[in-house]
Structure formats: structure tokens, C-alpha cells
């Protein structure tokens, strides 16, 4: 078990990295392009690909072409404007630009994008649900989704992924000034699915983002969320919850780029792993640029290994280019199931399987408590329950 905590706040410049000590400056000012060929085909030696089992990517990182389509269905309150737009729509790209080859491939390959707009100062009654169904076993599809909240708009969006096949997508979250978006992405794929997604959140002045990523199913799921603060006063909370079973690869690569002053970010990702070759990867990059005075950021990743044979890689990186910040820190722990907790619960008569469930539920409790939308929280509780049921914990 490793624990690292740091609270740099002094006047000196601090670069704090775990793992390989990869230079973060290149992450903040990283190369981006819409053009697939601007990116080399990854070999697996690159920092950003070294954890990903490329041979299981079904050529998404090379030159895979679409053989099918993902089903996208939207259930939205009437205030939300739902559009299907062509590739040339000028609003596409407002959230961000691809930073790796698969994202560029997805950008170059989708035929239609789904665009959801919540007009200024509107607060729809009830959540928007986007259900994405994979193209089917052995099929490949690409997708694009943009959620736009105009000034002072507020919304809850649930993006539900299910089904089979290979699916690469870009998701843009564009928050206008003072907008508040709660977004929950659920990866509840069938066992064969390969899902590679890049999310780009761009926050206007005083915008608030509450994002939760839940990864349960799929053979390989790789998600790369990027948060960019376009104006001061933004507040982003990124929560993640994942449950990796036998042979599953679940990867989350986050970049929070503090480029402007007085923004806040809080990252909490928690994962449970169970079974042979269950593998999770969490990369948390936080960059506080020289101009980003008054930044307040913390990131945390905790992994719970329920059995032998599972592996969790966790690499927090924090690079600080100004000393004038409110706070910055990170923590990462990976630990085995606590036998003392189990003994304590069992010594009160609670059967072992139920005791294990209580402990795992408790482990995720910190995340669930932070999910303000009851319907979403209940959905996640049920999903965790089903996961525990499936693995017989």
C-alpha cells in the first residue's frame, strides 16, 4: 500500500510527479489536431499508451473504419434543444480538440453528431438521458456528442453506454458563464465491448461542472477527460467509480488544466478490482499554469484489490507554475481488502459475503454521497449491487 499526500503552497515552483516522472508541461500545452495522420500510430512505448493493451483495441489506434453505427436515443425535457448535425456545424470543436490518434480517428469518422443545447437561464425539470448502444459484436462505430449549456443554464445529463462492439467517440461539454452541468457517464457495456472516449469540458466564467464517470462493463474502456477553464471562477468536480472484473481493462486519464485564476477542481476516483487480470489505470494530471493564481485543487485515487491477480496502476501528476495558489494536493492509495474490517463485521454475526458487500459499498460511499441527484445515485447503487452480485462478493 502506498500513500502519498502533498500540500505544496509555498512560493517556490513545484513539480510533483509519480511514476515515470513524465513532463507535464507537454500535457498542458500538448499537441492537438483533428487530423488522424498528424498522430503517429502508437506502439505502446509512448507515455500515453504504455498502459493500454493495444492488441485489444481492434485497430482503433491504427486505421479502423466504421462498419456499423451506434444507436443514440435521447430522452429530454422540452426545454432542451436536441439536434442532429453534420460534420460542418461550426459549433463542433468548441469544447476541445483531439489530443490522441483514436480521438482524431473518431473525429474524422463520425457522420452525424448529436447536439444538445440548454438555452440561457433554463433549468429543465428532470434529467436528460442519452442512451448509446454499441454497433454490435465485431462491428466498429464512431460517435460525437456535444452538450451546450448557455449562460446560467442548469442541467443534469446522464449518458448511458451499453451493448457490444467497438466504439470511439468524442464528447464535448461546453459550459457558458454561470452554467451548471451535472453529467454522469455510465459504461455498462457487454463483455466484448471496446470503448475509447475523449471528453472535453470547457468552463466559462463561474461555471460549475459536476461530472461522474462510472465504468463497470466492457472488455476495454479507456476514457480521457480534459477540463479547461476558459474564464476565472470555474469549479469542476470529477468523480469516478469503477469495478474491474476478470480480464477487464478500465483506464481513466484525466487532465485538469488550470490556465486562468481562481478556479477550483476536485477529483475523486475510486475503483474495486476483482479477478485474474482485472486491470485499472488511473492517470491524474493537474497543471496549474503561471497565470492561474488562487487555484484550489485536490485529486485522489483509491483502489481496493478484492482478490489476487488484479492490478491497479495509479499515477497522479501535479505541476505548479505559480506559488500564489489556495491549495494543491493529491493522494493515491492501492490496498488489499482489509481483513480486520471483515473480522469485525463477521464477529457481529454478519455473514462473510454480506460483510464484504458492506465494506465495498462503504468504500464507494464517499462518491455516492456526493451525487446530488437521487435518481442517479440510486441507479449507481443498484449497479454496484449488481456488480457485487455478479462476482459473488
Amino acid at each position, binding site marked *: 500500500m502506498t500513500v502519498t499526500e502533498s500540500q505544496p503552497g509555498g512560493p517556490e515552483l513545484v513539480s510533483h510527479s509519480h511514476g515515470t516522472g513524465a513532463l507535464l508541461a507537454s500535457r498542458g500545452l500538448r499537441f492537438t489536431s483533428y487530423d488522424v495522420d498528424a498522430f503517429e500510430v502508437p506502439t505502446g512505448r509512448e507515455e500515453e499508451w504504455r498502459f493500454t493493451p493495444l492488441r485489444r483495441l481492434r485497430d482503433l489506434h491504427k486505421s479502423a473504419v466504421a462498419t456499423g453505427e451506434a444507436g443514440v436515443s435521447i430522452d429530454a425535457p422540452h426545454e432542451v434543444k436536441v439536434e442532429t448535425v453534420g460534420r460542418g456545424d461550426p459549433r463542433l470543436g468548441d469544447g476541445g480538440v483531439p489530443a490522441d490518434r483514436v480521438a482524431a480517428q473518431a473525429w474524422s469518422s463520425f457522420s452525424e453528431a448529436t447536439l444538445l443545447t440548454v438555452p440561457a437561464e433554463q433549468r429543465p425539470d428532470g434529467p436528460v438521458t442519452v442512451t448509446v448502444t454499441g454497433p454490435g459484436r465485431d462491428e466498429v462505430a464512431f460517435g460525437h456528442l456535444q452538450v451546450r449549456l448557455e449562460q446560467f443554464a442548469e442541467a443534469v445529463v446522464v449518458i448511458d453506454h451499453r451493448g457490444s462492439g467497438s466504439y470511439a467517440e468524442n464528447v464535448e461539454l461546453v459550459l457558458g458563464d454561470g452554467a451548471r452541468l451535472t453529467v454522469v457517464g455510465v459504461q455498462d457495456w457487454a463483455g466484448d465491448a471496446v470503448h475509447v472516449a475523449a471528453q472535453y469540458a470547457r468552463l466559462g466564467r463561474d461555471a460549475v461542472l459536476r461530472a461522474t464517470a462510472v465504468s463497470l462493463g466492457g472488455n476495454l474502456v479507456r476514457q480521457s477527460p480534459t477540463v479547461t477553464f476558459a474564464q476565472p471562477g470555474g469549479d469542476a468536480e470529477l468523480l469516478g467509480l469503477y469495478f474491474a472484473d476478470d480480464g477487464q481493462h478500465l483506464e481513466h486519464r484525466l487532465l485538469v488544466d488550470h490556465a486562468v485564476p481562481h478556479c477550483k477542481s476536485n477529483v475523486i476516483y475510486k475503483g474495486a478490482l476483482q479477478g485474474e487480470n482485472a486491470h485499472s489505470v488511473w492517470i491524474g494530471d493537474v497543471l496549474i499554469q503561471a497565470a492561474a493564481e488562487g487555484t484550489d485543487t485536490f485529486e485522489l485515487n483509491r483502489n481496493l484489490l478484492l482478490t489476487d491477480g488484479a492490478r491497479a496502476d495509479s499515477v497522479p501528476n501535479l505541476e505548479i507554475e505559480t506559488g500564489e495558489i489556495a491549495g494543491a494536493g493529491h493522494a493515491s492509495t492501492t490496498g488489499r481488502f482489509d481483513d480486520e474490517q471483515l473480522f469485525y*463485521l463477521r*464477529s*457481529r454475526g454478519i455473514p462473510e459475503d454480506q460483510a464484504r458487500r458492506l465494506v465495498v459499498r462503504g468504500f464507494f460511499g464517499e462518491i455516492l454521497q456526493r451525487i446530488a441527484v437521487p435518481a442517479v445515485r440510486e441507479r449507481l447503487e443498484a449497479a454496484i449491487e449488481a456488480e457485487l452480485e455478479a462476482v459473488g462478493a
Partner: protein
Amino acid sequence: MATLEIKDLHVSVLTEEAPKGILHGVDLTLRAGQTHAIMGPNGSGKSTLAYAIAGHPRYEVTSGQVLLDGEDVLAMSVDERARAGMFLAMQYPVEVPGVSMSNFLRSAATAVRGEAPKLRTWVKEVKGAMSDLDINESFAERSVNEGFSGGEKKRHEILQLSLLRPRIAVLDETDSGLDVDALRVVADGVNRFRSENSDSGVLLITHYSRILRHIDPDTVHVFAGGRIMESGGPELAHELEEHGYERFAPKQEVGAR
């Protein structure tokens, strides 16, 4: 009527290296309605006895028997022992983050009683038991033992004792680390349990005789070097208070931890 019989019990603790023998033949019979105190110096094996009876995985019984009304306790899993009526109030109660005390108590009561307590009476029961132990209601929504002070943890052990109503309760140094007021609250809780559960037996493990001024034992056992060195009435506790444990230190164990 509950009877706990411990017969020639030998126990080793599993360490990084080799298992280390701690208990070297413990014999003890505790009958319903009785309270026995086990007193001994640090490292005498008192807590090992408590953990071995409860089935902690770090302790291995190498020989001997533990019987509850003739049933082989050592053949039962940890949770089966609790459901059979055994209870261990731990010296160091474990924190379980994210599991609320109320959820924990109800899960435990459901398991031990064999059915979920009726919600209305249960809420009342828990509130009453908490108030008896001067525990603030807000603790019900806190995670099990998380961030509790030493005294709060011990009170919650006694809270569990009163709600689970075991047939045999082993209290492992429940008195250590308590100030005078907390000691009285905890001792009152144990006495209440004894008077309300006359069919139950209590095995009170302690380092100090202080708690025996609040809880009258029927029998006092002096524990040293992994076995019972002497047994007697309450007067034995007074003697220990005056003269300490020197008389009982087994020669080969002098200098051991």
C-alpha cells in the same frame, strides 16, 4: 443456560516468520449468570485468548477445545460463532469507513436474531440503548468507529453488547483508556446487561482492578505466561491491586514482552 468450556487450549499467533506459541493450556468453565475476570500483565496472552475464542484469522488453535453448551466453537466460522451467541468487545474496535453505525447495528441484529427486527420497535430500542450509554443520536449516521475517540469506541462496543444480547460476552480490556466518567458509563452498561440477561455469562479481561470496583466478578483468574496461574474470589483482585503481578510471573517468561 449457557456454559462456555475452554479445555487445555493452546494457541499460536501467526507472524511474518514462524507461528509463535502464546497460550499454553488454558482451562476455564464459565456458566450462565456468572462473571469471571481474567487479570494479567501485558503480554500474558489475555487478548490472544479473546481473539482465539472469537476466531480471528491471525490466531491458530494448535490443540484444545472451546465448547458452548457442548458445541464445538472452534469448528464454527467467525460469524457462526456470533450467531451461536458469542460476543467479543474488542480492545481496539475497527473503523469501517462508509458503513453507517445504524446500518451496521441493524445488519448485526438481523444476523444474530435470525430475522430483521421490526423497524418501529428497533428504532426505539436503539435510541434507548444509546441514551443509556450517553451516546449522542448523531452517531447512528456516522461510519462505524470512524473518528471516534477511545471512549466512544468502547461505548459502542457495549451498545452492541446490549443490542445483540449474547449468551457469552468476552470483554477485552473494555476499561482501558477510559476516564472515570466513561468507565462508570461502560461499567453501568455491563451491569445492566448482566441483570437483564441472567442466562448469559461474562468474561471480563482486564489489566487493572479498577473496573472490578464497579463490576463484581464471581471468580478472578490470574493469567500469566499463557495460562491461568491461580483462580479465586474477588479478594484475589484486591491482592493484585496491592502487590501487582510479580508473584505470578513465570520465571521463563521474565523479560518477554
